[in-house]
């Protein structure tokens, strides 16, 4: 049984957008080891995104109604069919279904898109919050009724375990480090944690996938996520200020994004769109 296309795209877009964001550190890491670590992290995420887009493309091509829904996408069609590149490079901002958290710059809330200064505490805090969720999501999706999604989940789980370990280690070093690193880690958490509220408000696609057994009801993972987060934050001597949550809930996963995604996609997609028939 196949998962809903939009659910697969949600998972794929999460991985691709965070992978692209983290790749901004390539050649700019605070130390060589972290430059390598973030490049590895991106490689894993983009690899996961590729597997998911390939799966989504095969589901779209196999279903005339879905093929019609994506018929407006131009370029990177292989033999007239939707391919992984079509989905990654030829959809526009409003068609992406990633969480807003994934697309935010490596910086605090008051930032223009053109900022060249990046705050590694934001990078680490986001990777920590996201990989704690994805460890749980992929673990559950190993039992997906969509066999291909279950296979992708089993691979991805192994990778995000390392991402979570890496981000947790650094968050503890930052939080339990100097006054400066503590202040910046706390500021990064205070900035990012409210975006996590969107995890627990599943989109129609996530709900449909949970209902038919191809997906997971993320709300059932919330207590476990809280436990993972709270355990590490306690070790890092950092504080959660996000509960109870009373504010706007980010809507990236239903296609309403921050101003940052457009710039990220423009940079990522421009080459493919300038040369839509290119093969590499």
């Amino acid at each position, binding site marked *: 049984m196949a998962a809903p296309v939009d659910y697969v795209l949600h998972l794929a877009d999460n991985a691709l957008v965070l992978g692209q964001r983290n790749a901004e550190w390539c050649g700019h890491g605070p130390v060589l080891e972290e430059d390598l*670590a973030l490049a*590895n992290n991106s490689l*894993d995420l983009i690899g996961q995104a590729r597997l998911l887009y390939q799966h989504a493309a095969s589901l779209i091509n196999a279903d005339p109604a879905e093929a019609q829904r994506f018929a407006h996408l131009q370029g990177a069609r292989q033999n007239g069919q939707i391919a992984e590149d079509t989905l990654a490079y030829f959809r526009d901002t409003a068609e992406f279904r990633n969480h807003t958290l994934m697309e935010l710059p490596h910086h605090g809330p008051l930032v223009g898109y053109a900022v060249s200064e990046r705050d590694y505490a934001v990078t680490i805090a986001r990777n920590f919050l996201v990989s704690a969720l994805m460890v749980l999501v992929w673990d559950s999706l190993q039992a997906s009724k969509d066999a291909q999604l279950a296979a992708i989940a089993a*691979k991805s789980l192994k990778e995000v375990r390392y991402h979570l370990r890496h981000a947790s280690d650094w968050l503890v070093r930052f939080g339990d480090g100097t006054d400066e690193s503590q202040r910046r880690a706390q500021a990064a958490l205070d900035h990012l944690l409210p975006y996590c509220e969107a995890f627990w408000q599943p989109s129609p696609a996530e709900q449909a996938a949970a209902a038919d057994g191809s997906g997971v009801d993320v709300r059932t993972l919330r207590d476990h996520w809280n436990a993972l987060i709270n355990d590490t934050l306690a070790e890092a001597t950092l504080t959660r200020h996000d509960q109870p949550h009373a504010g706007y809930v980010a809507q990236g996963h239903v296609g309403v994004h921050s101003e940052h995604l457009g710039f990220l996609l423009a940079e990522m997609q421009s080459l493919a769109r300038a040369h839509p028939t290119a093969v590499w």
Partner: protein
Amino acid sequence: MDAATHASLQAVTEALAHLADPEIPVISLRELGILRDVREGADGVPEVVITPTYSGCPAMGQIEDDIHAALSAAGLPGRVITQLSPAWTTDWMSEAAREKLRAYGIAPPQCGSHADTPAGVVKFSRHAVRHTAVPCPQCGSNNTTETSPFGSTACKALFKCLDCLEPFDYFKPY
């Protein structure tokens, strides 16, 4: 399977036997567990089944090209199938392969994955992984420390030996 089919699959297997991982040339694709199977396709054409190590492993394209090149050099038909499940694990690495890694200067994976989870995956534990001793491939000392959990390729971490002071790669359990 008739004798002719068996012989043709055997020929494919032999043609691929020397193929090595592009990034770890001392270990064959078969020993690493990337080359999963050689079987007869529904149309009678031999199928070479490979599985990626990490999702984003950039060597997969090269490996597929290497297989096509080896088959074509041997004048054999065949196609390459990529299969994800069951997910590749370092548990499939033979003892001989581990020894070759060690001799090459890469510490082989230490702890295996558990069979009690659906994909044979170790449950997440930040502390358990850290406390596994990784012997130095140069001098054998257990007095080593992790420099970074991510190294020169997706499958390796960076370590250094506190006795002989050499840095080394560690093939991560996966």
